[in-house]
Structure formats: C-alpha cells, structure tokens
C-alpha cells in the first residue's frame, strides 16, 4: 500500500533517518515506536510529503509521491496531527467539512455528496450531537475525535496518526484507539500510528516498527519485535515479555532502567 524505500533525511547537518525501509500493508494498523526524538514524527511527515527526503522515495500503491500534487496526496492519505489546539471559533461541522477540501475547486461549493460524507464521518466518530459546537471550547479528547472525523471525510486509503494519545486522559486514550481500530476493521482503512507509548502500540497494532539510532531496528508483529534485547537496546529498559492468556495479548512487564542496575 505505502512503501518507504531507502529513505534518509537530515535537518541541516543532523541526520534524523538513515536508509529506512518499511512496507505498510493494506488494511493493517502499524505502529512506529521509538524513544522521544528518534525521528518518528519526521518519518510521518515524509509519508505524505510534508517533508521531502534527501535520499530514497515514498510510493503510494506504486506511485512516487514526489510526482503527485499535495491535493491528490490528500485524497488518499489523511493525517491526524499531534497538536490540535485550535484558537479560532470554527464549528465542529466547519472543521470536518475541511476534509472535503482536496476534492473541491477554488469556487466550487460543497455538493450533496460532500455534505453526506461529512455527516457520515461525524456519525462514525460519535460527534454528531455536537456538530454545531465551537471547536475552541472543546476538550482535547473531543477535538481529537473531530480531527479523526475530518480525516474520514477525506475518504482516504491511509490514515496517519501522530502520537494520538499524547495529551489525553487514560480513558480517552482507549476511547480514541478503540475508535481507530473499529474504523480500520469496518472501512478496511490502513492506519499508521506514531507513538512512544509502548503498551498502547502493543495493544492496538497488528505490526510494529522499532526505530533506533536513525534506523529501523526491527519490524514485525509485537510478538516478534518485542524481546528483552530490543527493549534494552531501544528504550534502555529491562523488561519481561509474556503472552497473557486471559487478556489474549502480549504483556510487557517493565523491571526498570538499565542504567540504574535493574
């Protein structure tokens, strides 16, 4: 679906990513995980050409993003950015309607189809009841759902989420990721989540990528990727990993930081 081919990127002289290769499969939820400042967000920005790599390329179903307009990229790839602080008093419906922008010409009004898609997106994310509320008066969790609805209104193939749980209370973290998981299954959406939140990624992602030292350290199912060795190398922690039969999921037990002799 989305192919990252030998990408290298540096800000000025400082290398951020070196020769990164990732194949994102159709319909999967894939988590990109690594410590803060490892270049995860940069990688996400490269995935919809908000940044251009110095080396390598990104392909969307075989087509190089370099040759596509921002508009046509936005018709296939939607983003839920990390910061969703909005100061201006747009209504929720205004914001979700912006998802239709990539499909409309300068003077073209929204058609009945566009309106229907916007309403649908609000229904799926359970925000229809506050469609007329002002975005600048809402909580972080509510805003997150509004931005996810906007992403759905783009009718994309791929949704990129940047640290979706960063500013949320723990119950809202689960709420948002449950929503993403449900949408991914119902709509066949491909989802890329960038996060430093290990338990969340383990719980929700089909596959994951560990980024370490500007490179892909490991790629695969949480089961394959998460080992005591990789935990030590990437996060500098000692951890025990075991399959929890009751939860039907991999459980990560963190013992402590390597540097403190745990």
């Amino acid at each position, binding site marked *: 679906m989305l192919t990252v081919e030998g990408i290298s990127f540096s800000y000025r002289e400082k290398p951020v990513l070196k020769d990164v290769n990732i194949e994102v499969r159709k319909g999967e939820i894939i988590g990109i995980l690594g410590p803060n400042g490892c270049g995860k967000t940069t990688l996400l920005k490269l995935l919809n050409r908000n940044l251009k790599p110095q080396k390598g390329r990104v392909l969307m179903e075989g087509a190089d993003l370099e040759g596509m307009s*921002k*508009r046509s990229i936005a018709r296939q790839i939607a983003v839920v950015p990390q910061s969703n602080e909005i100061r201006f008093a*747009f209504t929720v419906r205004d914001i979700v309607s912006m998802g239709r922008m990539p499909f409309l010409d300068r003077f073209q009004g929204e058609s009945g189809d566009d309106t229907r898609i916007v309403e649908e997106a609000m229904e799926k994310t359970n925000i229809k009841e506050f469609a007329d509320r002002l975005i600048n008066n809402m909580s972080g969790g509510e805003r997150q759902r509004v931005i996810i609805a906007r992403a759905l209104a783009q009718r994309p193939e791929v949704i990129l989420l940047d640290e979706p749980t960063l500013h949320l209370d723990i119950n809202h973290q689960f709420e948002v990721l449950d929503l993403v998981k449900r949408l991914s299954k119902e709509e066949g959406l491909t989802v890329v989540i960038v996060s430093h939140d290990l338990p969340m990624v383990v719980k929700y992602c089909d596959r994951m990528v560990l980024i370490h030292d500007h490179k892909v350290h490991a790629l695969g199912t949480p089961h394959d990727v998460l080992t005591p060795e990789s935990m030590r190398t990437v996060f500098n922690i000692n951890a025990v990993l075991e399959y929890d039969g009751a939860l039907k999921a991999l459980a990560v037990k963190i013992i402590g930081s390597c540097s403190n002799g745990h």
Partner: protein
Amino acid sequence: MDSVAKRKRRTTAVLAGLFLILFVFMVLDLAQAFIPLTFEEAFWALLGMGTETDQIIIWRMNMPRVIMAILVGAGLGIAGAVMQALFRNPMASPYILGLSSGASLGAAVALTFAVTWIPQMLFVPLLAFASCMATLFLVYNISSVGGRVPTETLLLAGIAVGAMLSALVSLLTYIAGDQMAGIVYWTMGNLTNAKWENIMIVAPLIFAGGLIMVSSSRDLNAMMLGDAHALDLGVEVRKVRLQLLVASALVTAAAVAFVGVIGFVGLVVPHILRILMGPDNRVLLPASIVGGAAFLMMCDYISRTIAPSIGILPIGIITALIGAPYFIYLLRRRRSEVGWD
C-alpha cells in the same frame, strides 16, 4: 456560547446593516457642498432626477471622493482580514507588518522628488507598490528561520521595519520644505484630492488583489488551523501564502498611494466582523469588503461635518478616534473570542 443558528441570523443582519450604513452615508457624503443638499435632493440627483446644480455637486464634485472611500475602505478591510487569518494573529494588519509604512515611504519619496519623465500620478502609486513589495520581502526574509516563517518573528520584524520606515517618512517630511504641508496632510490620510484619474489606477489594483484573496478563502480557513493542518489537507501552503502576501501588498499600496495612511480600518473592521460572524473566511472576506467600505464612508462624512469652523478634518484622525475606543470596548467584553484568554 454561540449557537450556529444565532450566528447565521446575526451574519445576515450584520450584512444588511452594513449595506444600509454604506448607502445612507454615501448619500449624505454626496450631499456635501458649500451649502449642503438635503438627503432627498441628493438621493434624487443620484438617480439622475435632480436639478443641474445638484447633479454637478453629486457627480462631478463628490462622486470621485465617495468611490475612492469605498475602494480604499474595501481594500483595507479585506487586506486586514486576510493578514489576520494568514498569521493566525488578531493583531496583524497591513500597518503592523510595516506594509503601510513601506507604501507611504515610496509615495513620500515620489511626492518629494518629482521627476519629469513620468507623470506624478503614476509615479506615486508605482513607487508606493515597489516600496511596499520591498518592505514585504525584507520583513519576510528577516523573519524566515531555516525556510520557515514563524508568526512571532514576522510580527516583530514587521514592527521594527515599520518603525524605521516611518522615521524615514518623518525625516523626508522634515527636510521637504515647500512640499512639507502636503506630505503632512497626506500622512494623516486625506480623501479630498481623489480624482477619476486616480480611481482608474486604484480600482483595478484593488479588484485584482481582492479577487486573489476571495478565491483563496477556503485555503485560508485551513491555514488558520496551522500550516501542518493545511499541508495535510492538500494546500500548497507556501505558494498560497506568497500569493496572498503579494495581493495584500498590492491592495495596501493602491489604498495608500493617493489618500495616505488611514489606520485602524484593516485592524478593527475584520476583527469586529469575526466576533459577530465567526472565522469562516468565505463569509468574512466579502463582509470585510462591505464593512471596510461602510466604515470609511461613515468616517468621511463625519470628518466633513463634525467641525464646520475648522473645515474638513483628516480622515485618518476620525478612523482612529472611532475605531480605537470601540476596539478596546470589544476586547474587554469578549476576551475569550479574540484569543486573549
């Protein structure tokens, strides 16, 4: 809290009100003469049914000034609305970014050092536009950090460059000697000398700039959420921003060139309208055109009638004296909606 239905109703009411203000003060302003016409006389003469003297007063004496007021007010109104959206800052305006000072330096130079090879009527707007664009690129480049232009540095650079250019205009005024009175009068804003020839130059520039702005209103909405949001929604942010900055320079230069510096229109009008109608630029930009025109029309009428013993006051004084207190009142009353909380 503001409900959508209420906001829609208010938008319609405000627009209707603005058109009414514009029309009433236009007729009142057209009626101005040594012995002013009554409202009815002016109204009928406007429709081509008055006496010959009335027609001359309306069409020959006053119409150029009225049309210039509408054009300049509309231009400053929409340019202010666009800049506030572009920089996500309610304090942005052609004046804050130094554009007005840039344009006025160009115009002041043209007024002081008349040249023979080009008529002054063209020389003034030409130099105003050149100087306005130069200011824009100077400010833009000073504030650009590694390919990005953060709002904070842009505003600070605009204020610093604007202060320097204003000082240069003052210096010119000081050394200008003979032309000094003219420049002083002009720096206070003045519609009295508006001529049809000037309008022929100003109108196309403001129309062109306004068209670019209105056609970008949807992109501008997305950019108000932040550059990253706009990029994610497929907006070519750098291109659109550059287009809008050039259009703003064009409109500001055209507005400043013949009537001088008229402050507060570009800051206050869009701001008030955003509080009343919401931030959607598809509504706000057209409304700022009407609002700017109505506000300046009203101020021109007041500048002509408020102090008959002194004569006509410079319009820039009136716009600031009316605009600033109302602006402060709104800021105190509705802090949260203007982003002051």
